[in-house]
């Protein structure tokens, strides 16, 4: 029986899980939940994800939501298969967790509303909050300086190997790079180097193809 992922292949949070599946060579099935028609808020989906969000997974009797928790679960369950996303020791794993948490608390809080305003709202015919976007960009410069410094002495965020810490950034970064924010990344030597390297990975290329890019 193959794990079912409920979500939309173009949405950031489902992509986080899909990328994990692809890196770990785990077979999966996508069950489309249409965000444009707010299918995620309908009773049927609320039974899978009571906060009305995507993704959710069903793997036989086992169910889970929160994309980062799902990714960690599969990275743990299939530790010996595909890419090791969790580090080689307890201490290394904790640093992977540290930078994965940084993604959620410092990066995504800025990246998500920027992507929402610059890419998603125009598509849905809604007005972009230009003032907010400018404020967020200023804050993002500060955060990216910290990443730039980190990637100056580390090939990847948690050390010298690609891990969950890098993976978890990729979906939102992928969209950010389609906005004029991409110059912020390109202007930073280490971030640019890191982004080029991680987006050259076969799993990322497969994901982009699946998402129609």
């Amino acid at each position: 029986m193959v794990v079912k992922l409920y979500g939309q292949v173009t949405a950031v949070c489902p992509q986080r899980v899909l990328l994990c599946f692809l890196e770990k060579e785990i077979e999966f099935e996508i069950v489309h939940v249409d965000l444009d028609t707010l299918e995620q808020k309908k009773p049927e989906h609320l039974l899978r994800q009571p906060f009305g969000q995507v993704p959710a997974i069903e793997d036989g009797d086992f169910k889970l939501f929160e994309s980062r928790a799902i990714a960690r679960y599969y990275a743990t369950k299939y530790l010996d298969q595909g890419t090791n996303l969790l580090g080689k020791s307890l201490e290394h794993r904790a640093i992977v967790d540290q930078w994965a948490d940084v993604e959620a608390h410092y990066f995504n809080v800025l990246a998500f509303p920027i992507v929402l305003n610059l890419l998603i709202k125009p598509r849905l015919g809604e007005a972009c909050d230009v003032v907010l976007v400018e404020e967020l960009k200023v804050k993002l410069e500060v955060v990216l300086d910290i990443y730039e410094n980190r990637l100056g002495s580390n090939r990847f965020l948690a050390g010298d190997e690609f891990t969950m810490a890098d993976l978890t950034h990729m979906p939102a970064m992928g969209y950010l790079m389609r906005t004029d924010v991409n110059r912020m990344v390109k202007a930073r030597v280490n971030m640019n180097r890191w982004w080029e390297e991680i987006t050259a990975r076969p799993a990322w290329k497969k994901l982009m193809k699946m998402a129609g890019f």
Partner: protein
Amino acid sequence: MVLKVYGPHFASPKRALVTLIEKGVPFETVPVDLMKGEHKQPAYLALQPFGTVPAVVDGDYKIFESRAVMRYVAEKYRSQGPDLLGKTVEERGQVEQWLDVEATTYNPPLLNLTLHIMFASVMGFPSDEKLIKESEEKLAAVLDVYEAHLSKSKYLAGDFVSLADLAHLPFTDYLVGPIGKAYLIKDRKHVSAWWDDISSRPAWKETLEKYSFPA
């Protein structure tokens, strides 16, 4: 050399402190004076480059992000104290799920209430009434989901207390105390019972007793 936790008087570091106490791990604390801007000084930024608390130093090893610290301690000391990660990979998955819910969905509106009700005047910015109202409504909607879930599950990840429950303690303590919105918890039967249970754990009582913000 004993593990050190920086910034014990603040809420986020208490996630790490309560976990250490639950697991019976010896530690020391190092105060960080946020009012004096100590967290923005180079010495502190070397430990936590985003300039927030906590930071943890364990011999040569440094780690920040309170929930990453919780996971590290719970994993390193797995064989002592309560098992806060569950017994199986699937139970761990449930712990991670609710730990992420706390971080992405529960804490953000609660943090807005904390900053705008408790700290606005002290930190010198105007308290945003509209944001307070919206945050309260958002938190109420989240707690409705918790109420439904906790009517079927004793603790968040199952019938065992886990990191997911403990992660809620510090800011919810503010919510029922100085923020003055205890009704959000008390008016929901199962959330209230869950809160009474986890907040009466000896490890949490010890955390508050030793590390509450000095009056």
